[in-house]
């Protein structure tokens, strides 16, 4: 009897102590999985080709890529970070240093909505150099985020001969991430847009820089140039992904090697709370079970 009372007292006291601990404990650093990305969008003209379809409507490559990223963001664990950059001409330009994706989801969408042809500061599309500049940006922004380079691989002017060598200050495999091949298989005409975003028809064969060989006379048409992009990915140590649907991007972004373990201040007060709850429930629960039988026979009933 006395022993049982003492045990009950002990349980109540321990529960009280755990509750005090729960009230006093500060958030503790706790490792959590999340991701760091720098997304770079090709904003050159060929990204305006509408060879994606959504709900029966044609969607331009750039729009589809942005929507896919916006959808993938909602599936990233909080604490993950995303930075944004754009590529045109021969280089990638950092637009937004990485910020946390849950707290700033609205702001990230707002900036994402700005990344289009209105930003275009140069008209060429030297993708190889653009990718190298993107690698530099990922290296220099801090935290070495995984690179997401969205492009159709359409070099303009076309590469005659081998692509430019990797910049001397970059090492293959230093930055990880994905080259994301955007666009369809069939070569399609490239819409011509002025700087205000107005449609001006399509680019004609004699209006664009054509390649030297007779088989390189179709530079006014654009498809996803997969072999080129795969070779680029190999050369830089990145992975290659063909952008076919939102889920594919999200899954590739959350692939195991990209996980970062980061200590985040975490409220762990639920641990002492749960223990206190268990202690409080132990006595009546034990009594209930006891009443039913097992311990019932041993009950010191007078």
């Amino acid at each position, binding site marked *: 009897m006395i022993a049982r009372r003492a045990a009950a007292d002990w349980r109540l006291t321990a529960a009280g102590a755990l509750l005090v601990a729960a009230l006093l404990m500060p958030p503790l650093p706790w490792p959590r999985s999340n991701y760091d990305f720098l997304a770079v969008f090709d904003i050159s003209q060929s990204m305006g080709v509408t060879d994606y379809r959504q709900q029966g409507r044609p969607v331009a490559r750039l729009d589809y890529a942005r929507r896919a990223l916006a959808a993938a963001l909602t599936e990233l664990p909080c604490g993950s970070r995303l*930075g944004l950059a754009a590529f045109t001409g021969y280089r990638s330009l950092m637009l937004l240093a990485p910020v946390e994706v849950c707290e700033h989801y609205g702001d990230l969408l707002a900036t994402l909505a700005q990344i289009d042809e209105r930003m275009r500061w140069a008209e060429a599309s030297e993708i190889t150099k653009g990718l190298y500049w993107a690698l530099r940006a990922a290296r220099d922004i801090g935290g070495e985020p995984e690179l997401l380079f969205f492009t159709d691989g359409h070099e303009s002017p076309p590469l005659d001969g081998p692509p430019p060598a990797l910049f001397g200050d970059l090492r293959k495999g230093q930055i990880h991430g994905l080259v994301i091949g955007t666009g369809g298989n069939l070569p399609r005409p490239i819409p011509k847009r002025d700087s205000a975003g107005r449609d001006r028809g399509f680019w004609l064969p004699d209006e664009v820089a054509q390649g030297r060989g007779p088989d390189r006379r179709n530079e006014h048409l654009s498809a996803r140039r997969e072999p080129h992009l795969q070779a680029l990915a190999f050369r830089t140590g990145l992975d290659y992904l063909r952008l076919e649907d939102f889920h594919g991007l999200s899954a590739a972004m959350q692939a195991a090697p990209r996980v970062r373990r980061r200590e985040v201040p975490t409220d762990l007060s639920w641990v002492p709370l749960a223990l206190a709850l268990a202690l409080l429930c132990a006595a*009546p629960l034990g009594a209930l079970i006891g009443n039913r039988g097992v311990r019932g026979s041993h009950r010191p009933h007078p």
Partner: protein
Amino acid sequence: MSVDIDFLRPAMLALMPLAVLPLIARATEAGGYPDVGWLPADPLGRGIGLALRAMAALAIAALVIALAAPGRPRTVELRTGRGAEVLLLIDRSRSMDERMLPNDWRRLGPFEIRHQTRSRGRVKSQAARELLGEFVARRPDDRFAVSFFSASTLHVVPFTDHDEVVQAGIAAGGVHRGLSETDVGRALVSSLARFEKRAYTGSRIILLVSDGGARLDRDTQMAIRAGFERQRVTLYWIYLKGFGRPDLEQAGEASAAIPEVALHRFFQTLPTPYRAYQAESPEDLAAAVADVGREQNHPLDFEERIPRSDHSRRFVAAALLLVASLLVARRWELRGTS
């Protein structure tokens, strides 16, 4: 104000039935109580026993609620503060990568200045970014947008009151060298358009940070003038004057051919307030930024985000109180019955 309550871990509420345990476990150990059935009928004792069981039940209920983490969801409230809507329009041309005069340039001889500037002056864009970053940090009531310009205008951060995002936009401007061309006229026209379709909430500012001028054609001039008038925007130009670059206040007809002077004179004809600050050294730049900060403190209606407030601690405290009372009551009861 709403009285909404939400739970971070609503699933935990499924544990609520645990709270009836002390009530149904009538036998020996409801809350640690011996069955008093063998004693003479004692209504008071029974009453106390029931009360203690109820307290144990309440303690469990409070703990279950605390585990579910109740709280008031994040809300947005309309407040009136003092502040402004500030669009930071920052030159991202290559000349911004040049250096400013070192802070102690006044003590240097005329021949040393050029050399010293090259070797240890602060890079213009870097000095500007740091000060703008501080400016943003010191003005929590303002809403900021960040745009860069070169040949095109890059509206990187649309108006937001999330300082962290504004800082991320400013910081991005520091990654790698600038672009080759600048078109300040086009940048101003498209920046003015950023205020369109926004409710006029107080004061609007374009803070132009650049190191060069431009002679604008008539059409651009008209578009800019009309934009400032329609959007009622105040213009501040922080002119990062490089070593040996023209002074904005240079008098005379001939100096109208100098792009910087031409731009300054055009700005002076705007229908809305305009001020220019010439900054040659980081010191000047800091003074200019501080000046802008002092001037603009008009009432501004803004939406304040009230973060989620967690109420679980209240329930933990309640549970603690109940547990402590139970302990005290048991001591007292022990004395009473022995």
